[in-house]
Each structure stands twice: as C-alpha cells, then as structure tokens.
C-alpha cells in the first residue's frame, strides 16, 4: 500500500481536493460515456523483438488517461503506435487494431498526416523547432495549408492562451523559440499541438525534464484540457500517476497488467506486480 505523498505546497492540495470532490460528484455526468479509442489485441514488433503483447484497452472520450510503468515497458511504443509515429522506424510491424471512433488507424485508407494532426503528441524533451515562437505554433497549420495571416494569428493566440503561455510570450512572438525555459518550451509544445485542434492529445512523459513548479503547472493544465480533448499521458513515475489521479493502466514488459482508477490501483492493486510497482519495489 502506498501513501500518496501530498505536495508541500498548500495551493496544490486545495486544488486537488477540489477537483477530486468534483470528479467524485460526477461534475460532468456525460463525460466518459463514449469510447474514443479502442485497442484490441494489439501487438507491435521491432524486427524480431516484440515490444507490445496483446494490448487491450478502452479509452473514453474527454478522459484523462494515464499509462504508467517502468522504462522499457512499452508505454512509449504504445503511445507512438496511436499516431503511427512508430512507422518512421524501419522494420516494424503490428498485429491487432487501434481504433479511433471505430476506424483502425492502420487502415490503408487513412491519411497519416491527418491522423497525426488529430492525435497530437507532446514529447518528453521539449524541442523547439528552429524558428520563432509564432512560427512554431503555426507550423502544423502551415503544413496543413492554412496561409491566411490573420487566421494564423488568431489560432496561435488562442492556442498559446489555452496552453497558459500567452501572457509570457505575447510581446516576443518573433523571438527564436530556443530562448524559452524548459517549462515554457513544454507549454509551447502543447500550444503547437492545440493549434491543430486535435481530438486526442498524447503526452510522452511530458514533465520528466522539468522542475517541480513547471511540472505542477502542466499537470494542472492537463485537467483543464479534458473539456475539449481526450488526453493520454505516459509516465514512468508512479508518484506522478498517483498525483494525477485519473484512470490508469499499468504496463510491464509490453503487457497491460492492470487498469482501473488511480485510487483502486494504488490502494487495492489486483495483481502482485502492480502492488510491487506502486510500493516502489522496482521501477
């Protein structure tokens, strides 16, 4: 049994308690009723090495879903299978299906660039594209074909506001993005994705390189996002998973060991391996 260690910051506790209570009261009752992503017997291979084994998961619409597990457990591979970023690596293949709104992402008729815009990804190490802040956020839009300057400006501003970065950068949008700090860069990465108005946001260990304050800011941001998006977050830190307190899946060596609400997984783990992981015996 693990004790969820409260943050030594008064504000967070209050916010967390508030959110928790609201969630438990089913603040938005309709939320979480439709299934957005359905994963059926999904396996993934790098050459001969099998990285994912028969994954079965259901992720509901407008839900924050956490995937946790030690390094090498296949969490990142799984995330990248959703937006088919894994296709970039040569010699890979898969079995089974990942369906978004009923359509298999590996379907031959799928437009991959459209898929990736719809399931935007934020990486562990925030990487600014070598261009200005504005151009970074507008990048996906431009690739999509949007040229109208005014439209771009509108969307960029909105995205930066949604990512809680606007106030900090609104006066220096033409500055090179590499001038931003780590936490700002990560919020920039989120803005980049939001600008494309995806339905799903995939975050691969988004706070692993950040300081505690930036981490908190981003975790807070995630809960705001589920109003409009389905958010899937990968973390290797069980404490973070506990803190986030969402529906969680525990991955180990390419398999889903257990799924459930964070509360259930941490206080009443059904599988011994889960119990070992959450009590810190490994990982």
């Amino acid at each position, binding site marked *: 049994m693990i004790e969820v260690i409260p943050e030594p910051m008064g504000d967070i506790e209050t916010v967390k308690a508030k959110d928790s209570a609201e969630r438990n009261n089913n603040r938005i009752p309709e939320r979480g009723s439709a299934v957005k992503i359905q994963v059926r017997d999904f396996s993934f291979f790098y050459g001969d090495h099998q990285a994912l084994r028969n994954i079965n998961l259901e992720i509901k619409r407008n839900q924050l879903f956490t995937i946790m597990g030690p390094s090498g457990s296949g969490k990142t591979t799984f995330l990248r299978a959703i937006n088919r970023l894994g296709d970039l690596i040569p010699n890979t293949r898969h079995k089974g299906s990942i369906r978004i709104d009923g359509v298999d992402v590996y379907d031959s008729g799928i437009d991959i*660039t459209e898929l990736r815009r719809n399931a935007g990804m934020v990486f562990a190490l925030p990487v600014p594209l070598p261009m200005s802040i504005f151009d970074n956020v507008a990048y996906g839009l431009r690739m999509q074909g949007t040229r109208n300057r005014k439209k771009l400006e509108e969307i960029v501003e909105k995205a930066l506001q949604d990512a809680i970065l606007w106030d900090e950068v609104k006066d220096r949008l033409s500055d090179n993005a590499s001038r931003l700090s780590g936490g700002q860069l990560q919020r920039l990465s989120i803005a980049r994705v939001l600008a494309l108005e995806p339905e799903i946001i995939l975050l691969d260990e988004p706070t692993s390189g950040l300081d505690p304050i930036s981490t908190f800011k981003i975790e807070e941001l995630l809960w705001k996002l589920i109003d409009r998006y389905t958010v899937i977050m990968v973390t290797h830190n069980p404490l973070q998973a506990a803190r986030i307190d969402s529906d969680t899946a525990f991955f180990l060596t390419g398999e889903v060991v257990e799924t459930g609400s964070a509360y259930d997984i941490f206080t009443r783990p059904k599988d011994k391996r889960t119990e070992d992981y959450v009590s810190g015996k490994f990982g």
Partner: protein
Amino acid sequence: MRRSETLVQWSLALVALFAIAALALIIIFIFKEGSPIIARLGIVEFIMGTKWSPSRGTFGILPMILGSFWVTLSALVIGVPIGLASAIFLAEMAPSGTSRILKFAIQLLAGIPSVVFGFIGLVILVPLIRQWLGGPGFSVLAAGIVLGIMILPTIVSVCYDVFKAVPQAYREGMIALGATRWQTIRMVVLPAARPGIIAAIILGMGRAVGETMAVIMVAGNATKIPVSLLEPVRTLTSNIALEMGYAVGEHREALFATGIVLFIIIAILNTLARVVARVEKV
C-alpha cells in the same frame, strides 16, 4: 497525400541517379574511344611496350607507367612521413585551439591550384636541383617533391580523422599505467590507427597518380624509362595532357587508351583504400 509523396521519392531517386549516369557515361565514352587500339595492338604490347613514338605508330606506355610509379613513390616518401607526423601533432599533441587553426591552414594548402604548385616547382625547385644535384633539373625528384607537398593535406586530414576515432579508453588505459604521451601514441594509438593510415597512404597515392598539371611543369616529360631520380620523366597523366591538343587518329586513340589504363589503376587504388579501411575495423 500518399501519392504525392511517392512522386517526390521517385523524382529524388531520378535526380540521385545523375551521379551514376555520369559515371556510366564516363566509362562508356572513354573505353569506347580507347579500347579499339588496345584490341589492335594487344594489351601486353601496349602496357609493356617501351617505345612511345606516335609519328612511327609505336605506342608502348611502359615508360609512362614507370614514370608514374617512380614519381608517386617519391611523393609518398616525402609526403607520408611529414603528413603523418603533422597529423600526430595536431591530433594528439597540440592544444585544440591551435590544432583547429593549423588544420584550417593545411586545408588551405589543399585549395591551392595544382598549376601554382607546378609553377613554384618550375621557378624554384628545378633550378635548385639543376644547380646542386645535376641533371636538367626537370626530374623525378622535382615531381616527387612537388607532389609530396600536394598530397600532404590528404594525408594529414585522413590520418587526423583516424586518430580522433581511436577511442579515448585506449589512451586512458596506458596513462593509468604511467606511460608518457609519446609512449601512448607509439604503443596504442598508432597500432589502432594502422588500417586508417594505410588507407590514407593509398588515397594519397591515388591523388599523386592522378595529378597532371603540376607534374607536367616539373617532370621534364621525356618518354624514356627513368633510371635515376634526376632524370626527366613522363607520367601517364602528362602523356595525355601534353599530346591531346594536337593528336589525331590512332595517336588520339592511344591517348584515350592511356586514359583507360590510368582509370583502372586509380579505380584499383580507391577500392583498395576502401577495403583496407573496412576490413581491419575491429
């Protein structure tokens, strides 16, 4: 979306094939022009023939092959020790800032056109040799020295890269045993770098064999087999360049045939260099 990407891929592939198309054309045209005469004379006659006399219809290129050989050998004797030593100094001994500047300076040497080297050889080296060592001055030695200087940048930069590629762990092992820097270099770095050094030498050889203008200006261009370093000599490359301007008919074909021989020699050297560098990679 997917269709335009395939289009891009195939267009790029087409562009990329330019290089191989050019190579094919070069081989086709030169071989087409030069092989008839080799077929007529017989390859042995051509390569082993000791007389090159176009006016009489005699086309033996042995003197030129030997000329190229001796000139290249001299160039290596001069260029390799100096180049190797410089590379050792730059890679293992000099502080990195100095090393970078010096490397740049040596690369500058590579940028000087070959005709300038030939000219300096003509104006300074040839009279010097004539005065102090005898002979006409235009000689194997002159060409060897000029070429030796010209291949220095090649030797230095390839050897430098090879030294830099030797894992630091090797050196650390020696230093932990109390070895001096030179001992470390001699006993660990040099042996580890040996295949790369050999490759560098072969590449330098290739460059020397292929050099034309500088050699013409200092080697004397006599079509006899050289018996001493001080005698004038003609190389395969100079043979082509000197007579191409006015050669017709069979004479011209013979020059292209010389080109074929040159091409094959260099192809062998380049392949050898690549094989050596790869084979001994532990």
